[in-house]
């Protein structure tokens, strides 16, 4: 009788505290990460204790991926001091990834792309809006939402070409006269950023 009691007790305790495990029917695409053989062997060894929970048991369900590809891409473009675009529906964005200019259409494969200094263009019908990004990341999700984050993003009209030329010359000179690795790296960054702005202004 006592053996039954402890079994019933542990069963009800397990059901109550592992709510996140039993109510996971609503999470749309997360596969069940509960390893049933582990849970069974745990219960044999320690029937009065709940099996340990894994981090995925505490995760909120991911937003569902629609079965048909949506017609528009939802873009969230944020900077540390402002939200440039929040949930804007566009046809395409072209982002300056480190691997080259990447075009993102609705239904793009989920990707995390590191961005290099370059131009991002947002295409909505016939409108194209361009920004020069200093660097950042682009997170493309399965449900056609793109989160683009950068530290500085400026429209091309705000850039002063003479300052860019001056900066480029200065950093090229610093690159030749640099001694330590760190100075060389900083000069190299300077040359890359200014060359990218130059290319953006002329291209």
């Amino acid at each position, binding site marked *: 009788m006592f053996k039954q009691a402890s079994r019933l007790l542990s069963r009800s305790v397990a059901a109550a505290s592992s709510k996140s495990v039993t109510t996971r029917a609503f999470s749309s695409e997360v596969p069940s990460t509960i390893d049933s053989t582990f849970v069974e062997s745990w219960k044999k060894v320690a029937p009065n204790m709940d099996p340990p929970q894994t981090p995925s048991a505490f995760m909120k369900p991911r937003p569902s991926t629609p079965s048909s590809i949506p017609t528009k891409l939802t873009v969230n473009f944020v900077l540390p001091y402002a939200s440039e675009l929040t949930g804007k529906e566009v046809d395409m964005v072209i982002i300056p990834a480190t691997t080259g200019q990447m075009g993102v259409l609705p239904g793009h494969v989920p990707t995390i792309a590191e961005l290099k200094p370059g131009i991002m263009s947002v295409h909505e019908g016939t409108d194209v809006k361009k920004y020069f990004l*200093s660097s950042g990341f682009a997170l493309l999700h399965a449900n056609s939402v793109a989160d683009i984050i950068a530290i*500085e993003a400026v429209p091309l009209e*705000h850039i002063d070409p003479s300052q860019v030329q001056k900066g480029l010359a200065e950093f090229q000179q610093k690159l030749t006269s640099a001694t330590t690795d*760190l100075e060389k790296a900083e000069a*190299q*960054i300077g040359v890359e*950023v200014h060359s990218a*702005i130059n290319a953006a202004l002329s291209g």
Partner: protein
Amino acid sequence: MALTAAVPFWRAAGMTYITYSNICANLVRNCLKEPHRAESLAREKVHFSLSKWADGKAQKPVLRSDAPEV
């Protein structure tokens, strides 16, 4: 077996991503036309006061500020 994976040049020189990113942002800000340049450089200003604690008491605070001294 590549013991040194292909790292960007700045990481090989000992710089972290956030330092790299902040340098890039600073360079872009310096290349802007006048009213935008002043506004954006104002964003880089830092003002904080740091005090270490010892024996339950705060030691002399260290103040780092780009704001002009009052």
